[in-house]
């Protein structure tokens, strides 16, 4: 076959996996689903249908499922095999690949709940074409264990053994890699706070013994320079356009948050005007959608950054941990303020505006609704990783997304309650019936309002 090669350096597959992982933060899961569920925006025309809490999106559910497994997972599994095979083994590369694999599987299980994990993505490496499913509980435990072992390898690792010249996130900087892997571990530890409190607490303690992401220099981002550039650029300028949610605008405006002009553009009248999420067709028709505010320019320029995880998010996790595990409100407040400051810094807000905002009430924990404050700031800090935003809401219940009861809002198939997962598609049911049926029996009905294991709020 003259069109392709039969052997390749695993670096080229590693870059593919990493890039896939980043690009998956802008895929359908965000633009059609999580962006709506997280009440960040409303997509135009018929792309907004998931905002009505329906579940008739078999093709999309399938595309996202196949996209996750066929993107980062397909390629990182091969890297894991290559880097652990006797002739080509490389523990540093293997550890880095493990961190990427953990993020890829974490997103898949956060989206669907129980998924094929131990047998997942092994079509080529182990000839498994009908993989069995694992419980989310067992997956999370293993993901945390994998991170722990990767972090110990990466600490003090020889960078030359990594991916010099072909490492898209940190240009192979091992110190940043340790912070990154450890911060991911912290995210996962906090994720299971309500489902396995003991493991969560123990893991958080472990995380605090190693370096974490602290400044915006440590953020895991890339700039998509290939093709038409940043996907949100196309969503702003193309069709169907997205208009920012009144929920987001109210939050930012209500707290005089300087990120308003970063996240939201003014409309043609020069004002910020948000879209209400969940309008039924009649109300949507009358909503003057075209004149609502677009997504902000800094989020949606061709060279805008897309993120996997940030220092701001990490600080806010630490604040939450300090609050609930150490019961130390003072430290929690310090971390909370550090998180907000870092989050504002991430968007290059003027120092004076940061100063002003840090002086406002929202920038300090009030002692009354600390968890809600942290949850709300997490919701803002993860932008533009909208999938993470929806996931935070599911985990903590903050910000509170009320059940939809108004006459002009669509209740969908959940009776107006925020959806909690994606469906297994009919394609998966057709091609892997026995295994997916077992997962449904274990997890609960294949519905969009069946909570995943860690979702106790």
């Amino acid at each position, binding site marked *: 076959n003259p069109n392709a090669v039969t052997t390749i350096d695993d670096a080229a597959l590693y870059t593919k996996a990493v890039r896939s992982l980043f690009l998956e933060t802008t895929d359908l899961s965000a633009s059609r689903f999580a962006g709506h569920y997280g009440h960040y925006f409303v997509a135009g025309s018929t792309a907004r249908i998931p905002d009505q809490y329906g579940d008739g999106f078999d093709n999309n559910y399938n595309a996202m499922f196949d996209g996750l497994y066929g993107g980062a997972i397909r390629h990182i599994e091969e890297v894991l095999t290559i880097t652990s095979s006797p002739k080509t083994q490389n523990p540093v590369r293997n550890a880095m690949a493990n961190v990427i694999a953990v993020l890829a599987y974490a997103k898949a299980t956060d989206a669907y709940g129980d998924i094929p994990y131990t047998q997942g993505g092994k079509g080529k490496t182990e000839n498994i074409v009908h993989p069995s499913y694992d419980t989310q509980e067992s997956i999370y435990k293993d993901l945390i264990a994998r991170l722990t072992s990767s972090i110990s390898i990466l600490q003090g690792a020889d960078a030359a053994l990594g991916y010099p*010249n*072909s490492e898209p996130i940190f240009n192979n900087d091992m110190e940043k890699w340790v912070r990154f892997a450890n911060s991911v571990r912290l995210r996962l530890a906090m994720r299971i706070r309500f489902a396995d409190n003991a493991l969560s607490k123990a893991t958080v303690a472990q995380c605090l013994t190693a370096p974490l992401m602290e400044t915006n220099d440590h953020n895991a981002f890339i700039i998509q320079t290939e093709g038409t550039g940043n996907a949100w650029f196309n969503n702003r300028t193309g069709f169907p356009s997205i208009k920012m949610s009144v929920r987001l605008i109210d939050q930012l405006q209500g707290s005089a948050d300087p990120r308003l002009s970063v996240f939201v553009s003014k409309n043609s009248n020069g004002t910020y005007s948000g879209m209400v999420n969940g309008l039924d067709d009649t109300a949507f028709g009358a909503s003057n959608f*075209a004149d609502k505010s677009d997504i902000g320019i800094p989020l949606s320029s061709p060279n805008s950054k897309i993120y996997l995880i940030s220092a701001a998010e990490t600080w806010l996790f630490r604040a939450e941990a300090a609050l609930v595990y150490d019961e130390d409100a003072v430290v929690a407040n310090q971390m909370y303020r550090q998180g907000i400051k870092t989050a504002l810094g991430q968007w290059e807000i003027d120092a004076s505006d940061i100063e002003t905002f840090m002086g406002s009430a929202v920038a300090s924990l009030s002692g009354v609704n600390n968890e809600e404050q942290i949850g709300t700031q997490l919701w803002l800090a993860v932008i533009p990783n909208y999938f993470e935003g929806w996931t935070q809401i599911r985990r903590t219940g903050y910000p509170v997304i009320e059940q939809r009861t108004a006459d002009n809002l669509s209740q969908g198939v959940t009776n107006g309650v925020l959806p909690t997962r994606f469906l297994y598609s009919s394609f998966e049911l*057709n091609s*892997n019936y026995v295994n997916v049926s077992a997962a449904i029996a274990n997890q609960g009905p294949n519905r969009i309002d069946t909570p995943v294991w860690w979702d106790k709020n």
Partner: protein
Amino acid sequence: QTSISGTVLEKDSDLPLLGVSVLVKGTTTGTTSDFSGNYSLNNVAEDAILEFSYLGFKTLEVPVTGQVIINVRLEEDGQKLDEVVVTALNIERDKESLGYSISQVDATQVNVVRENNVMNSLNGKVSGLQVTQSNTGVDGSSRIVLRGITTISGNNRPLVVIDGIPIDNGGGGTGQGGGVDRGDALSDINPDDVASISVLKGAGASAAYGSLGINGVILITTKTGNKRPGIGVSLSSTFMFTDIMLTPNFQNEYGTGFFNDFAPINADGKPVLDYPFSWSWGPRLEGQSYTNWLGQTDSYSPQGNPYKDFYQTGYSIANTVAFEGRSDKTSFRMSITDEDIQGIVSNNTLGKQTFNIRGRSQLTDKFSIDGKMTFITSKVENRPDLAEGNGNTALQLSLMPRDIRLTDVRNNTINAQGQEIKWNLDNTFNNPYWALNHLRNTDNRDRFQGLLAIDWKMFKNFSLTARTGMDYRVFDYTSHGARGAQSIKSGLGEYSHNNGKSRIWNSDMLASYKAEIGGFKLTASVGAMHRDEAFNNQYINGFDSKVRDFYNISNYKNSFSSESITKKAITSYYALGQFQWGGYLYFDTSLRNDNSSALPKDNNSYWYHSENLSFLFSRAFGLNPKFISKGKLRASHAIVGNDTGAYRTQAFYNVDQTVTLPYTVASIPGSLPSFDLRPETSKSWEIGADLGFFNNRLMLDFTYFETNTKDQIQAVPISGASGFETVVVNAGNIKNNGIEVQLNAVPVETDNFQWNLGVNFTKNNSFVASLNEGLSSIELGRLWSVSVEARPGEEFGGLYGNDFKRDNFGRKLITDNGLTQRGERILLGNINPDWFGGISNTFRFKNLSLSTLISVQQGGEFYSYGRAYRTYFGTDKRSLVGRENGIIEDGINENTGFKNEVAAPAFLKQFTDIFSNEVSKDQVLDASNVKVREVTLTYSFPQTILRDTFIQSASLSAIGRNLFFLYNAAGDIDPEAGYSSGPTGTAFEHSSLPSTRSYGLNLKLNF
């Protein structure tokens, strides 16, 4: 013993016939007639019988009985009493000796009613053959299926062989996302050069072609020029108009807006053009004053059928001049054809020139050569974008609100900033005139076919033929979309250029030995064939133009390129045997071994065989020809293997095309390879009878067949959680059976008047016996929410889609809002017709003849997303239901259990059912239809008029094609109007171009 000489003339014209075989019956002594039709034979026994035979003429036997001069006139074999047909490996055979079903179509049936794609002319004429012409602009492709679909993932297209050389028979069409139909390889066959077409339906007939012939074979023989009397110039001229036959039914009562209201007006004075205000759910059109989409005050009135004004009457002109000549030993034919077509889309044109040179020479008594060169050059401009493509003008027009004036659309395509102007913000739907002017493509194709064949009668009874031929194609496609339309790379503009070449080279050799022992005749042959396929292709693509209206890759800021090379070779060896006993019992057998480079080394050699039996009981029992003039029973059995495409047995990595990255990115293909593929096998048998009654005034051919294709090589879908989409395996078993009947009758025959009637009937069943283990379905195609699937235990080609949600009694469950809900995914139909056929009539009165062809299809379903789209956009006539008072769904309230009495607004119902809930129950339509395919009225100028001119013969025909439906179950949608010519191409219709009819004149002159 005596010497005999004489002249052989054609009966009607008294013109000499060259090359007539004159044989002393029962011996091998014989000669052929020369240029003047003269022959002479020495040492003939006085009681001998001379046999004069000539292809296409009735064989004449004349007892010598002491004569020394025997002049004969041969009569053209109108009814083909002893029909000679071309069979596999270009062997000419008596039709009666064949144990399988074969249909032959004459030149006149394809070159009077001339079609750009010769295959379309076979539609309705041959039992077992289903030809569906897509509605995809000039030079579009056609779906061709012989005896039903046998393989799940293969292309199922029959092999096409021209003068013994198998050519590229690839298909065309596009997918649901849009694109253009680049035509299929068969549209390059010039109808004016065709002498005859044989259709080999079953594996028994095509086994000699091995795996290539697994889907049947269409054998085309081109004219050689050895039969024409006169000075040898012939001219054929066709001029046809093409106009719109069928368009969707639009409503004319409601225009732009939403919920019976106008759209709000923006600050810029224009109405809000976003969904849903750009749909046709506004107020009633009553001529009232309103602000139109351009922001002008206008009168709100219906604007008629936009298709009628946007599309124009097309035409096609085809002229062929052929020169033919001959000498004692040599004959030749040279022809040139020029064809120009103007489609119904104003910028869609075709220009094609075909040069053809064919020569044959009898170098010595024993050695002859045959050579051919065909060169075809064609250029197609602006193949129309189809389906959901953003350049599909039919989609744009069909969804345009009913109050928008087409002249406004035409006069407002581009603003001062160079941006497209349109009435909506939806990316998919461009302004059709913008699309016409700024989304363009050009296809250039050159094709060369060469052939050289030798025939060497080495010894008595032993001959050798060898043939080599090439089909070489070069293509060069460019397309561009201008800057300024959101749908074209976010307004940046796009350009692509694709070129490549394909070469298929076939060489074969056959050695035959004939023997006769008593009444037992035997022909034994051994042969070998080598086929070599090579394809390569380079593609460059760029977007973000630097300068306007300049289409060259250098003008684009981002560019990508790719190339691919595909090579495959098959070497085959075969043996054939023909046995004949007593002139009434024939037995054929063939054995073939293929070696394919596409299969793993351990499995790459595979065998086939076939056995065919023919018994002429009318001859064996000496039946009275006045009653039973022909009686033949036949039976055939064959096993055929098949290989697969290149490079499916190897794991590999693709290197990604990146422009900005400082590192290399590689990816793993989504289909897992298989390392132990075996060839597919297809077993088939057929039985049949050919019967003639009343001196063959009534003839009936009947065939029943069964085919079973196992171990199909296909990429089966696997769980996406494996990280991969498909794995290539040997799996799947499809069983086909069917009945084919062909009836020909001459109900009336007098000197001046003759009526010929032909009826053919085909019934096929394809049944999926099994798929890969654990796999409950394979999706073969999808449009929106409807898929064509193969499911084990079901008919092949089921259409699956969502039903409404129902209770146990089948009643629809309605919400409190009066809306239906999405229910189970169920079988909604099947793409295969219950049966299909054709009825042809020819009436000849003196020099005037009238032919008609009517095609019939009963059953089969297709999904019209075009209609679904128009219905929820509110432009379709069906969207009028319940506009004022809403629609009360027939069903029960899901909460109360009582009959639903809540009226849902019509818009909400249509949008929710079709779009939100993806319920497709009501959009799957019956494809049954009866269509008048061809009407031809021909006047042949009588010889009495032409006698004193230099014109040998002349005829003028008035012709019409695809004139109208006598019956169409789908009403305003043409069931053949698909966008793909793939195996499941008839399943889906999506906003196709309007169906057309064509009519015109054909003039034929021979000098």
